[in-house]
């Protein structure tokens, strides 16, 4: 790794959360001035609530929330899936990424309701998380507890897969090929 890309874990929030939650495990990384705090799935909601409300953090704005599938990633990762919260503090003019890694416990080729792929919804903290969480559910099959309306948002209800998983073929499994055909006689 070239010297100038070695992570410098000097983001002030790292120390604040470590002091606030002494028993919890945190990991951090940094790339070109953007810091990422890696949290265990069970702690995510509590830590995010703290980051929003604490006077020295004040991440009042959830800029984005999305999923990642690290299957066949060139380097080793902590888990197969990740959910990333992109937090912004308008008051402090600061941005922080919070990342949660999840590992599936069931085969990932279908739509099985995997108990290992659950997170607590942050809609109660940032109402704008509602649709991004639905998208993460739709695309990766990661479900959110206490979400007010966890339905698919882009594909349709009966879609037989979560298409952004890397083990799902790019061209699908025939979803785009099988549809009713309209011809001159039927219309």
């Amino acid at each position, binding site marked *: 790794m070239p010297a100038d890309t070695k992570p410098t874990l000097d983001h002030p929030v790292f120390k604040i959360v470590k002091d606030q939650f002494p028993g919890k495990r945190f990991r951090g990384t940094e790339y070109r001035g953007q810091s990422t705090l890696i949290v265990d799935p069970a702690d995510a909601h509590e830590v995010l609530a703290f980051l929003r409300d604490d006077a020295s953090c004040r991440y009042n704005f959830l800029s984005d929330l999305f999923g990642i599938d690290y299957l066949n990633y060139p380097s080793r990762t902590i888990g197969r899936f990740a959910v990333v919260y992109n937090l912004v503090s308008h008051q402090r003019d600061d941005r922080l990424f919070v990342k949660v890694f999840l590992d599936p416990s069931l085969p990932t080729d279908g739509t099985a309701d995997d108990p290992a792929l659950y997170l607590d919804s942050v809609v109660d903290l940032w109402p704008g998380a509602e649709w991004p969480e639905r998208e993460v559910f739709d695309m990766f099959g990661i479900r959110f507890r206490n979400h007010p309306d966890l339905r698919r948002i882009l594909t349709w209800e009966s879609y037989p897969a979560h298409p952004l998983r890397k083990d799902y073929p790019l061209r699908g*499994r025939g979803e785009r090929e099988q549809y009713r055909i309209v011809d*001159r006689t039927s219309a």
Partner: protein
Amino acid sequence: MGIEAALPVDGFLTTQLRRVINWARRSSLWPMPFATACCGIELMAAASSRYDLARFGMERMSFSPRQADLLIVAGRIAIKTMPVLQRIYEQMTEPKWVISMGACASTGGVFDTYAVVQGCDQYLPVDVYIPGCPPRPEQLLEGIMAIQRHIDQSGIPPTPPGGRRVPLGLVIEPTHRVRPQPVGITVGGV
């Protein structure tokens, strides 16, 4: 100017009913724009003053399928929008024609993914395919004129077997010449 210039002085002319009906149909093709992506922008350009679709009897884009004769599919069709497109097609009254405008509507274009229909002719009868990404407005006009020429020739009831319309399946050739493409610059022979 126009038809009255051809009239004899006493003011009547004889013609065939078929010709009058075809003339009326050809000159008032109202398009239903189904513009889902960038091709829709070129469709708008074709409708605006520079290319002026109104010259061909398309004074009005019909946003109600029930008052449209010509469905212009402009842009990629996700399989999730297919029911909408088919419903629009079914709501249009006969006689009706369909133009598949651009690479995406005709073949899926570069979007070879699970969500994008690889050519709307898999699920709809298409009369005219217009190539291009996006096609130039001239080319869209060319496609519309191909339909107008076809209407001029068609019988009443329609000539194809059984009196039933069949998809025409016309392919429009590009109307412009491709100019020399840029090449890499070399400095000092490298």
